[in-house]
């Protein structure tokens, strides 16, 4: 089972905050790993917010391969943070030899937004392929102002290893999406741990997607970035990316794609023509099964929604400076004990709830 959580804050927060959000829910998430995506970074990354940041876990050989590739493709290294781990004995962590977080400058003549987005994706895919073939490491994200960390083990020990309990101001962000479990359904593969990331979109899911095969078979030919499929939750991310980034449809249509309204309801609506067309054209992206998702968008907004039968819960709550989303309310109680609980939102099966950058919460009914 899975539990997911996210924090959106006006003041940058440490990853320990996300751990405090997640750990009370541990009965539901089995403590088999820790993964997070941080966006809108401060601390040591403050000066490089507009430069792509590569998040990597690899061996020494892997690091060389990456360097070689980046050099030969005219990426200029600007800054680097290699965490010095706290290698206490008896920590439950299957650590990789190196964790590298490195900012690069774009190669020359790569100026437009679109060009850069494509280049960053191509580069990540190429690095992934190189590291996969050599069996020397994992690349999780390559994007400005985004850092990804994933590891297998007990989340507390992983945090100790990376000194995430120290709260020393070096690693902080305004947006964090986190999850404390490796894949318990299938093989333990680092790529299978959410959150997943693609071109500015981050996504975590709690639950199952029984249309995994359908989604996968369709997504495979939709976009070169839709790869891996180590987890059925990647489908949610790829569909989010497809609807928003490729088709450029507004966010509420994402919900119409993954959990379309029943035909009987569509027929009652004014926009039935469009909704029907979407439902039939993207029938293969429909998602069935019990699930909840939390996603981060490239512009910093955060959103959550759940399956159309509301078989998996999620709750959102907060105060003036911080709003958090969590599978279980105990997580919110831990990090936001003084919030007005009566304002907590339990999204229903037809809602998308969005937190914007001013921490205003909007609810859209499908």
């Amino acid at each position: 089972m899975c539990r997911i959580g996210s924090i959106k804050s006006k003041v940058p927060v440490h990853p320990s905050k996300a751990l405090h959000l997640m750990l009370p829910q541990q009965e539901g998430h089995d403590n088999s790993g820790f993964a997070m995506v941080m966006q809108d970074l401060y601390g040591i990354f403050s000066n490089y917010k507009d430069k792509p940041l590569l998040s990597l876990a690899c061996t020494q050989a892997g690091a060389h391969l990456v360097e070689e590739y980046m050099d030969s493709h005219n990426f200029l290294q600007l800054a680097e943070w290699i965490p010095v781990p706290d290698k206490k004995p008896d920590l439950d962590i299957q650590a990789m030899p190196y964790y590298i977080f490195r900012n690069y400058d774009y190669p020359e003549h790569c100026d437009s937004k679109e060009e850069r987005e494509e280049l960053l994706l191509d580069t990540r895919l190429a690095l992934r392929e190189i590291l996969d073939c050599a069996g020397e490491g994992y690349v999780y994200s390559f994007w400005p102002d985004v850092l990804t960390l994933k590891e297998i083990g007990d989340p507390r020990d992983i945090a100790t290893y990376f000194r995430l309990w120290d709260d020393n101001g070096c690693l902080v962000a305004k947006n964090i999406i986190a999850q404390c479990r490796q894949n318990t359904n299938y093989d333990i593969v680092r790529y299978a741990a959410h959150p997943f990331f693609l071109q500015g979109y981050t996504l975590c899911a709690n639950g199952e997607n029984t249309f995994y095969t359908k989604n996968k078979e369709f997504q495979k030919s939709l976009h070169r970035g839709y790869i891996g499929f180590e987890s059925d939750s990647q489908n949610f991310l790829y569909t989010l990316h497809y609807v928003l980034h490729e088709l450029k449809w507004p966010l509420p249509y994402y919900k119409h794609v993954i959990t379309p309204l029943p035909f009987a309801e569509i027929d009652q609506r004014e926009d039935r023509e469009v909704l029907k067309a979407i439902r039939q054209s993207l029938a293969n992206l429909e998602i069935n099964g019990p699930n909840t998702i939390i996603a981060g968008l490239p512009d910093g907004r955060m959103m959550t929604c759940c399956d159309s039968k509301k078989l998996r819960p999620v709750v959102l709550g907060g105060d003036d400076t911080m709003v958090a989303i969590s599978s279980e309310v105990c997580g919110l109680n831990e990090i936001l004990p003084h919030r007005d609980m009566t304002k907590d939102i339990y999204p229903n099966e037809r809602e998308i709830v969005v937190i914007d950058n001013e921490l205003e919460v909007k609810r859209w009914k499908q």
Partner: protein
Amino acid sequence: METIKVQDIAVNDLPWVIEHHADRCTLCGSCVASCTFGSIKPVVERQSITVSQANQPTPLHRRIAVPIIQQVADLAKACRGCGMCERVCPNQAIHPRRNPDSRKTLLSRDNGPVKRGGRTNLNAQRTLDNIVVGRISQMTDPSLDAQRHTFDIRAPFGRVLAANELPLKMENGKLLMAKKTPPVQWIYPLIFSDMSIGALSTRAWEAVALACAYLNEKCGLPVRMSSGEGGMPVKLLESEYLKYFIIQIASGHFGWNRIIKAMPHMVTDPGGVLIKIGQGAKPGDGGLLQAEKVAEHVQAIRGVPKATLASPPNHQGLYSIEESVQKMHLSMNAAFGFRVPVAIKCAASATSVSVYNNLLRDPYKICGGFFIDGIQGGTGAANEVSLDHTGHPIVSKIRDCYLAAVKQGLQGQIPLFGGGGIGMTGNAAADAFKMICLGANGVFCGKILIQLLGCVGNEKGRCNSCNTGKCPTGICTQDPRLVKRLDVDRGAQKIVDYVLTFDQELRKLMAPIGNSSLPVGRSDALVSTDKAIADKLGIQYVC
């Protein structure tokens, strides 16, 4: 003593032998009257009996003449095993028995190829029964509740565009349709397949049509019925109910005269148009309606004289079949103002994937559905050699076509419908569900509908006499006396009840795999205990 004439046909050469118990027979004559094939006749038999009536044995030997029921030893009048005689006999004095030593297949070719109706009798293997729904939601992924949850059991019928081809424009954060898109209707995934008026009696056709309309109007199930190649009654063409019907056009174009004449008077569009290229029961062979069945009303509907009506095996065009099919697609689309989906039906064949690819890649996007008909489809009349020895099973064909579309990312753009043997063992919902998991959007079936009406034919040579005009159940004949045997309302009700149960059973299969809409292409939900089938279909092998 007579000389034995070995070349003469004897009763024991026939596929069915009648067992008559003279001791129970009261000579009411019902069986002889009910037998439409003239397979039995009353004759007088000489019997010798010895009776003793006194206290002591006083045997008295007598010869008497007794009327009995005797089977006719004639290939043309061979008993079909239909069992009508048995049904009507008040004393259980008569019934047909299958004769394993029949020589009929060998001996009945004196006048050219043997013709019959029904399904293939040689290729009745059941791939679908080697597949089970094996991916059951447990624990973290709860099953749905077949009773409580809502299920959207609908299939698209019409040409579906890729999302990035939709002519959408944005206004105030809302998407609007900027242009017309090809018509798509969401229909029930079970289509009543094409059986023409002519092949069926008007009453049987009416019963199926009645069931279709009832399911739409009263049960909320948008079931569509294909007219078959033989036109439709003008009254229906000009009624509101036309929207539930898919009008078929086949190579003989029978009935289109009337359809075209009715067009200005139509109050609604038909549910669709189906261009029939081929039929699974007799691929490569055109339609066949033997003169015996071309009654007056059939002549009127089809606009033909009384004669054997053979549709050519191909649609004829000046240049090529593709060209004529293309033209037909376009003209059918145009005929109804591009408001009605136009689909195509082909016999399953080793080449089906290429056909499907052609349709998928067609730049005009005019094909609204690909119907593939497998070897186990039924027919009203065909050469037995075609029925038994040509064709292609449907299950792997649907899968192949689906996977061909997947490979190109085009799945779902031309809905796939599979037929030919669906419900052969009575379990149409399970068959349909498995076909859908393998990639079909829906299924079509015909034979089981007439079986629900009362047809007694099967794949073991029972009856299969639909071509003769002597259908004992009044379904496949135009003889007014026989047609009266069919109770239209009762027949329609039987179909309605079956479809309602079909719907419940589909839910019972969707719930455990946790799906509220049809699991098209969810091959992961299926497993097979047969390795070869599992490998061929790309599903899990289990044992």
